[in-house]
């Protein structure tokens, strides 16, 4: 359980593109936050900053009391797990080995040279696999699993790390509706039962409404909405998804009509 605070964060990429234009956000320990916004709004960049996969041009990100900076990345990352849209598993390794990579932060390189782990690591991994319901697939190669199963391996890897927070970057964007539901329910359950802070980027407004404690809406690098799901009205959605320079946006109306 850990709070995440983002203070005055600006991120400018080397090509000059400003992905984040001054972000302020305080994420409560043990809460479930969904970040909504159009593609290119800066959602992924925001999440990647919290894990140190990117570093801010200005401002700072804190996990608990610790500032995320390049000198203690390993320490920060050992507490903050990440779940990816494309799962980012090592395809050719078994499910177990993939989940074991979640333990690497706790182990020195000496054993790793021989692919050796401790017995207690294996116990943690089996527990994590049981929670995501993949015990029977443990020794399959990761790339032999379906998309939904691969994402559950991704979540098991995150759990194996025994993190204080889990960041999920569009975890259901490549999945069918039923698998999406399962994955979201799993993340929600992890948040409720283990008190792990969860931050999820999503494209599905409806999933956000049902699962989130709090929704942050982003558009072109700024936070345009921050509140509880029931406060997110149609006009709020229009602000989140509005496109620059387009006044009468038919696509926007159609897309939000059933949201």
């Amino acid at each position, binding site marked *: 359980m850990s709070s995440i605070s983002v203070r005055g964060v600006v991120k400018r990429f080397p090509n000059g593109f400003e992905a984040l234009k001054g972000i302020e956000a305080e994420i409560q320990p043990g809460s479930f936050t969904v970040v909504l916004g159009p593609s290119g709004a800066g959602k992924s960049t925001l999440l990647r900053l919290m894990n140190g996969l990117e570093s801010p041009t200005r401002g700072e990100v804190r996990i608990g009391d610790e500032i995320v900076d390049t000198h203690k990345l390993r320490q920060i990352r050992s507490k903050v797990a990440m779940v990816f849209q494309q799962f980012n598993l090592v395809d*050719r390794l078994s499910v177990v080995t993939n989940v074991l*990579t979640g333990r690497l932060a706790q182990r020195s390189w000496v054993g790793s*040279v021989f692919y050796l782990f401790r017995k207690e690591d294996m116990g943690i991994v089996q527990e994590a696999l049981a929670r995501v319901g993949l015990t029977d697939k443990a020794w399959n190669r990761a790339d032999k699993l379906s998309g939904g199963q691969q994402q559950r391996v991704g979540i098991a890897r*995150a759990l194996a790390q025994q993190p204080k927070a889990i960041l999920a970057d569009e975890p259901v964007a490549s999945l069918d509706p039923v698998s999406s539901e399962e994955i979201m329910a799993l993340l929600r359950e992890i948040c409720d039962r283990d008190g792990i802070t969860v931050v999820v980027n999503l494209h599905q407004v409806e999933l956000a409404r049902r699962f989130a404690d709090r929704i942050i809406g982003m558009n072109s690098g700024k936070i345009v909405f921050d509140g509880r799901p029931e406060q997110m009205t149609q006009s709020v959605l229009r602000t989140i998804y509005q496109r620059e320079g387009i006044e009468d946006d038919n696509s926007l109306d159609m897309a939000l009509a059933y949201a």
Partner: protein
Amino acid sequence: MTTVSTWRWPTPSGWLPLPLVGGVLVLICALWLTAPMVEVDFVRLIGSLGKMTAFAGQMFVAPDWNYVPQLLAKMLETIEMTILGTAIAIVLSLPMGILAARNATPHIVVYRVTRDALSLMRALPELVWALVFVSAVGLGPLPGVMALAFVTVGFMGKFFAESIEVVDQKAVEGVRAHGAGWLQVRLFAMLPQALPDFVGTVMYILDHNLRAAAILGLVGAGGIGYDLVMSMRLFQYDRLLLIALAIYLVVTLLDRASDRLRSRIIHGRQA
């Protein structure tokens, strides 16, 4: 008229790009003009057809069966040299490959230095390095193994590095994001992905090294090479035939084995 309108290349104009056509034409002209420098002469080639068939005919003699025991011993030595040289090279090439891969090297200077060292190692053929090592450690298979390992590191390190450079970055990020250290990221995210390529490289190099080992005897560095060259010089075609067959047989068997191994590694155990 109809053919012109029916056929087209997938370019905006429908014609081949001019630089490509020009380049190929220039290349053909250059080859045409320079071929005499290396004495590629079709008249002479056709003229010597008779001599070639005569030589090939001499190969078909009754094999010298008394030579078989020595042949087996020498072939075994050749195979041992090949496997040992390649095995030593694999152990050295793995770290070299990591250092020489742009996405895995600790620093760009290390990358440059390793790349240069590797190209120095493979700059000269095995035979030349064998000469060097024969003068250093004396005659026998040892300098042969050293020469093989040395040149092989030069090639294998480069091939390994190139396989590492094309690994999927997503998996690397996945492992890195969970707090894995520098070496752990390379061992758990990069190497497993590069493994099928590694196996392909090793099998190709084994094949190449066997053929290289077969001539190292020429400079006194062990293996079948000495017998091969001597039987050629002494016109002992009854031996030469057996030696050529033995080398062919081993290379073919190796090729079969490598196909099996590769498909097993790429597709996993059961599939």
